[in-house]
């Protein structure tokens, strides 16, 4: 191998040493991966979604495998922002990599509360807002499905934090562009996409849903072509930096997202299949760049003709 390549990327105010992040809910609080990999290798990692108060999550069964994918209905089980800041974050601060807190709530107030607390916690590189959550004030329609609600919640959070703000878009919409625009208007610095697609599976013998919650979120390689499409659409609608997510399990998958317009990527379900997946993705990106004689990531990102 030749001299280590410079893979640093800037996503607006967020600087990463390389473009490989891990996706919320698939990397625990980071510590679970310490036996497998040096977390310093990663561009950063996004921790499990955090809420104001701890949540126990849904009853089992919570997951089911599907062709090239999986369904989950974990139910955003988490230890709560307070315990995260007290117990988890201090242990993670030693890493020289971007630690990103993924946050959610069911009302704008909850979003603001958890964001305010996260903002005060030392050692976070950015916040990622999961807006694929039912907005109890509007009859349970996900924040992320409604441009108005998206703009409002992003703006409210923007007001309480000076950390780089990444907004994670849901793919379950007719047209993602107004949502991307709304997030930008609300003050997002970065857009990450996509969250899971709605899906369902049935046990044909017992005639019951495979998940206790009836339906859940589809992730994994199956969704990659849809995620690439949505990155292409969002790129046409905003000039915010994009983080690509969906079915990435190899460097080639990551490069595909980057050519489509993503400045960085998140590895999700791939971490379950192989705990070293994120590092392999990084190494394979390097190999690809070398083989193709590409000197700089900039030459790759968004290189798909519009």
């Amino acid at each position: 191998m030749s001299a280590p390549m410079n893979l640093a990327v800037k996503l607006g105010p967020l600087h990463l040493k390389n473009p490989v992040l891990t996706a919320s809910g698939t990397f625990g609080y980071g510590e679970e991966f310490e036996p497998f990999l040096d977390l310093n290798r990663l561009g950063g990692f996004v921790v499990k979604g955090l809420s104001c108060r701890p949540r126990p999550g849904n009853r089992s069964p919570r997951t089911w495998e599907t062709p090239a994918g999986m369904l989950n209905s974990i139910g955003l089980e988490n230890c709560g922002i307070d315990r995260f800041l007290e117990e988890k974050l201090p242990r993670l601060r030693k890493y020289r990599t971007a630690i990103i807190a993924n946050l959610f709530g069911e009302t704008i107030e909850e979003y603001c509360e958890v964001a305010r607390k996260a903002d005060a916690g030392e050692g976070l590189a950015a916040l990622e807002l999961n807006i694929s959550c039912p907005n109890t004030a509007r009859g349970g329609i996900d924040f992320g499905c409604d441009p108005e609600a998206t703009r409002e919640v992003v703006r409210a959070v923007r007001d309480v934090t000076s950390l780089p703000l990444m907004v994670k878009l849901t793919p379950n919409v007719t047209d993602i562009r107004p949502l991307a625009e709304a997030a930008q208007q609300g003050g997002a610095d970065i857009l990450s996409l996509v969250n899971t697609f709605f899906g369902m599976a049935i046990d044909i013998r017992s005639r019951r849903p495979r998940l206790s919650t009836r339906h859940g979120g589809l992730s994994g390689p199956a969704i990659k072509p849809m995620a690439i499409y949505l990155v292409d659409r969002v790129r046409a609608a905003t000039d915010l930096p994009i983080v690509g997510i969906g079915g990435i399990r190899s460097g080639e998958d990551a490069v595909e997202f980057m050519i489509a317009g993503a400045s960085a990527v998140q590895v999700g379900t791939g971490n379950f299949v192989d705990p070293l997946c994120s590092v392999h993705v990084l190494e394979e990106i390097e190999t690809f760049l070398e083989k193709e004689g590409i000197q700089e990531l900039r030459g790759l990102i968004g290189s798909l003709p519009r």
Partner: protein
Amino acid sequence: MLFETQVEVRANKILGAEIFLLTLHAPDIARAALPGQFVMLQASPSPEPLLRRPMSFCQIGPSGSPATGPETFRILYQVAGSGTRLMTRLVPGDTLSCLGPLGRGFPLLPGGHPRRVVLVAGGIGLAPFPFMAERLRGSGIAWTLLYGARSAGQIVGVDWFRQLGGDPVLVTEDGSVGEKGFVTAPLARMVEEDRDGIEVYACGPDPMLRAVARVCREGGVPCRLSLEAVMPCGFGVCLGCGVEANRPEGGYLRICTDGPVFAGEEIRF
């Protein structure tokens, strides 16, 4: 220690009705394995199925078949769906990625110093017990295996236990071999006869485990249950394998890292 490695298929033999014994060469994992622990094993060298399958250590090293060498471990598996069906196609020389050993297995030394450990296996729940019985024998702890299955065709590995000095008590639902009925019947008798002298380790389908837990609770006998769940990751990170904790504050335990073996009173299931 935990290893993420490529393992090599050394043998893949049919033992009974859709039940196979897979021998894998994997020195690191074989050396570190404990009874009741498991691996997450790629089911096929192809990219599908996406997720690995959780499989218990059945035998380690030369115990099962001396010809396969000391650096191997064996998996006893039953065809349950598409992934295990693909596993039947594995041939010597295939390599698979594998993560393990995972989870907390059965206690090597039972807690209350009982005179005898009763191993209760339901169907493919037999898988962890050849390894367990060998270790108990090595520690000089007496054991009995109660082994229930649907029918004679699903009964495998009886000789392994005979070689370890124990004659399994067989029970089949159709009475085709051994006692007719469920494995909880002989268990209830043993609990009745010798409630202070025994401790129970059980592995099998949920309804069996529930029945075992009830018999033990009612008889005041400690029991350890090895639970199953769909396991996307196996190392505690996806939170997909929760079982309700039996504690005032509620919440879930992860079967993969908090288990798969639990004391009967730890869980609500």
